[in-house]
């Protein structure tokens, strides 16, 4: 009886460092951004004296901002869908096959994370530019006459983000699929399900927690990415994150930039919540 309270206190002590870190590096900065977003803009100094809703009102009323917000969300969804389609089979293969190629496959998956962000993005510029490797190869094969515009729009940003974020989808999914008893698929087939139906009715619902974890990571990371869209997006492929930095650094409009950042965060939370609601039905029954 008397053991419960000291135990709980000791357990609490264990989380104190993590909690302190969280407050110092996550909650406080967010808090200051929220406050900043309600400050009055100013030309002399970071912000004016009073508080106002004007930053939000003007952002929400600005069709350019709204369009950028929509495009950013679409980019996030696009990258998530692409990584999911590419990553699921890889995760499944790694989880289920005993192959000597698995080690090599792991290396390939993690490779994008081992190269520095700027270097990797330069690599994509070399490949995707108008005179780049991709266009040269395609025209040499006779598939295209004029170079495709793969850079300075969302195409390049999507490709490069999908490349670097693929491991964030594969790794949680891999752990999830590894934890599924492979015999449940065998059982489904013994009960008359084709390979495809066994996957659809059994494996896919059971791997939904992994899909959720991976998809949310990829989505959040792609809408908040800065370097990749800044280097590959050009003018038309500018995302909200690029815009926010532009506001803060180039135009020195801190309150307005903060409001954009908060709007982006809220939109992300709403999208993730929607995604959860959609997939909830499947995961509800999982242990």
């Amino acid at each position, binding site marked *: 009886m008397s053991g419960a309270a000291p135990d709980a206190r000791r357990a609490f002590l264990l989380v104190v460092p993590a909690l302190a870190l969280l407050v110092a590096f996550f909650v406080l900065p967010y808090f200051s951004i929220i406050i900043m977003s309600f400050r009055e803009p100013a030309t002399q100094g970071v912000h004016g004296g009073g508080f106002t809703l004007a930053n939000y009102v003007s952002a929400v009323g600005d069709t350019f901002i709204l369009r950028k917000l929509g495009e950013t969300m679409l980019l996030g969804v696009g990258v998530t869908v692409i990584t999911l389609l590419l990553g699921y089979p890889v995760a499944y293969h790694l989880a289920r096959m005993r192959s000597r190629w698995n080690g090599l496959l792991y290396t390939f998956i993690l490779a994008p994370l081992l190269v520095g962000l700027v270097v990797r993005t330069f690599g994509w510029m070399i490949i995707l530019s108008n005179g780049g490797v991709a266009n040269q190869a395609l025209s040499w094969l006779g598939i295209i006459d004029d170079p495709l515009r793969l850079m300075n729009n969302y195409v390049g940003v999507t490709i490069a983000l999908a490349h670097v974020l693929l491991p964030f989808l594969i790794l949680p999914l891999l752990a999830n699929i590894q934890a599924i008893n492979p015999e*449940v698929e*065998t*059982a*489904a087939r*013994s*009960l*008359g399900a084709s390979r495809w139906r066994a996957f659809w009715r059994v494996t896919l619902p059971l791997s939904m927690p992994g899909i959720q974890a991976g998809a949310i990571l990829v989505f959040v990371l792609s809408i908040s990415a800065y370097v990749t869209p800044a280097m590959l997006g050009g003018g038309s492929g500018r995302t909200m994150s690029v815009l926010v930095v532009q506001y803060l650094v180039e135009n020195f409009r801190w309150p307005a930039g903060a409001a954009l950042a908060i709007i982006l965060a809220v939109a992300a939370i709403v999208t993730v919540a929607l995604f959860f609601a959609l997939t909830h039905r499947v995961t509800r*029954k*999982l*242990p």
Partner: protein
Amino acid sequence: MSELRLNAVRKRFGNLEVLKAIDLTVANGEFVSLLGPSGCGKTTTLRCIAGFEFPADGQILFDGVDLTQTAPEKRDIGMVFQSYALFPHLTVQENLSFGLEMRNIPEPERKRRIADVLGMVQLVGFEERFPRELSGGQQQRVALARALVIEPSVLLLDEPLANLDAALRDDMRFFIRDLQQRVGITAIYVTHDQSEAIVMSDRIVVMFDGEIAQVGSPKEIHDRPISKRVAEFVGKSNFLKGKVESRRTDGAVMLAAEIGPIHATAPATTSAGDTVECLLRPESMRTGALDGLENQFPARVEDIIFLGNSVSVHLTIGGGHRILALLPADFLAVPGDEVHIGFSAANVWCLP
């Protein structure tokens, strides 16, 4: 319900020949066990029958129809796994419904059949539970119900009791056997537990290293094994070496054994003059009233282990030969005592 036939089925994984020409016929409604040590190919045989592995060679026939290369979902089998393999995201009802939905059986009939089968496995009232909310034994019964509700022609079970504790395992043996008899389904049961195979099966297939060593009734396998290896695998054994002195046409032989002259039984291949090794099961030894037993020897008790319902006794007979006897628990002796033991000629089996 149907008859199953394996014709010279071979299977290899890389360089490893896992099944070497397996021939087997299982009659309609028969309960056959595949018994053998770990790695002998029992699961592989079952997976070939189910269609999860395809033999390199040979045929698998269901009621005379060659289904060797047919996909598992088109084979009309029911399967029970050691891990149960219940669908964790579905309730008991939904687990049972799965196979029926795959067969496009309409809802009212699905409901009726599920209720019937749940009655058979004594799980009425558990429809809405998830597998994680059931005990191991209950999960096992759901797995059984899920395989039976689709009314397959063959039921395949791969060590279904291996994860249960000893007492429950004993109950489930009879439960499964009884259920199989009531449904009248052809069943193939994989196990490496000889006592399980003996109490449950109509016939036992003993496998070693991808080959069938012997096929026979539990009694044949137990009392008339074809080799020392089968004898040792199927139960505790004493082996007596000797030379056949004379042989009658009914198989009764006189043996000059190391422990002295004994009456024994031999297969047709054994003739006078052969040197043989005989199997004497510990449980076929008697003390006390020895009337009518052809072989009687004085013996000295070395040690006694109390097993609850019986005692395991080490004896020395015939000048220093140690031999193991399994005797009723009322055997009252202490190490050092001289006793008389006896065993019938029918229980001394000369290995071919």
